[in-house]
């Protein structure tokens, strides 16, 4: 079964938003994500997940045999990839169905879904 990569894009919340969240609200959000992760684990489709550091990030590009490094991803867009999940699914339809349950969508984020080319 092929694997799918879920890239969780989000617009970073403002400092004010984060300051005003109560412990109870924070717990509720974390709880939502955990419940979803537990569910896809129970369903046997969870493969991996990781948080990507919000701070830092670099873009590298080759220029005439040399290379250039710029700070990113902030310079490119206000949106950033907060982290990713990998799930296994028969096809895109099924992968979409799995992703739909991700609370990331409920909290205003976007999910980029890509099939990982299987190694032969």
């Amino acid at each position, binding site marked *: 079964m092929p694997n799918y990569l879920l890239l969780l894009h989000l617009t970073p919340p403002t400092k004010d938003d*984060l300051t005003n969240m109560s412990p*109870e609200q924070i*717990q509720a959000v974390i709880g939502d994500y955990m419940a979803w992760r537990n569910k896809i684990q129970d369903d046997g489709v969870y493969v991996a997940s*990781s*948080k990507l550091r919000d701070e830092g990030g670099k873009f590298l590009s080759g220029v005439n045999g040399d290379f250039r490094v710029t700070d990113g991803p902030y310079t490119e867009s206000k949106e950033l990839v*907060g982290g990713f999940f990998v799930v296994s699914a028969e096809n895109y339809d099924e992968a979409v169905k799995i992703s739909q349950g991700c609370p990331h969508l409920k909290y205003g984020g976007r999910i980029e879904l890509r099939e990982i080319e299987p190694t032969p």
Partner: protein
Amino acid sequence: MTPAQTSQVSDSLDHLFRHHAGQMVSVLSRIFGVGNIDAIEDSVQDALVAALQKWPFGETPDNPRAWLIEVAKNRLYDRLRREKRSDSIDDETHELIDLHDRTRDTHFVGEFGEDELKMIFACCHPAVPPDSQVALTLKTVGGFGVGEIAAAYLAKEEAVAKMLSRAKQKLRSGIRFEVPAGDELKPRLDAALRALYMMFNEGYAASTGEALIRRDLCFEAVRLARIIAGHPVTASPKVHALIALFCFQAARLSARSDDRGDLVLLSEQDRSLWDKHMIAEGIEHLRRSATGDELSDYHLEAEIASCYALAESFETIDWKRILKCYDLLQSGRYSPVVELNRIIAFGRVNGAEKALEELSRLGENYLMTSFNFFHLTRAYFLAELRQNERAAEAYRRAADLTRNDAVARFIQKRLAEISKIS
């Protein structure tokens, strides 16, 4: 889930972060000084936000509490250093930090309990205005957010934030982080218990705020009272009486309103919804309150609450005993609101007619005539005497004075019943 289980769950899982937040603020106040309360609260928030950003992706630490406090402590350390106040972190504090590191995993509960106790006393210090003590305690020890406190009080968030910042100024003005001792103990313990009593009543009152958050206030008051009762210096019969009172009242919370949020009269409540664990805990604390020779108002109120909670049915409630407790309460410090409750018990013992006579005497107090429950009580006894027109008039006056939707619906229901009979 059975109702019996809910109180335990709401204690452990439901408000994990809230409790963590309160414990972190308390333990950091001990280590870094309660004068740094603003930096402490900010750092605790940092730690919770760090969890919010990391944990959804599966990097949940084995010991979440230890992880959170470690992050909060480091952020606070950085923050204080950045504010060039590192000189305020003296050797003793360094020592405390080391000690804290060593004991982190083994003595969490006991250690936190004492820190939370000291934090309660700091928030209820006489220097803090009494009307801000409850909000400050909810914010710091309780881990409630400003929005949640505002919802419970039906107040504006800005107003609550302003009140809290004024109260925190007092915390910064040299209040000591301690369990009071000697002559100071009694008045300060009384002040803390009064604040918890107010916190509970704020949650229990049917007239204000959002139902869910008010419920949380009740259980928070119970949790904090348990902390006071759990410390050898502050445990006293009066504290046990207060917890007994809380337990008996809180046990009936889920039966007090139906699925639509409508009020359910005590006589019509489904007793199988009462929390039996809470009632058992109430009995235990009532037993422990019966030592010593002080008979506090909390003792009397706890006994009244026990009469309701322990009666087999509404019909077997011991109204005589309740009336006696109210008489004793009123002989101490008279209150017109308590008088209203006394008259209800009086009416159950001596009949509706005599109760109405007492009510008209109480009605000479002009404050009472603008109190909806006064008219509700009159209507109740008038309806019992089948004086339906006068009862309907009293219900309508109560309705005019009611701003709470649930109470308003309750009154309309009674009015409809009366008009059906007559």
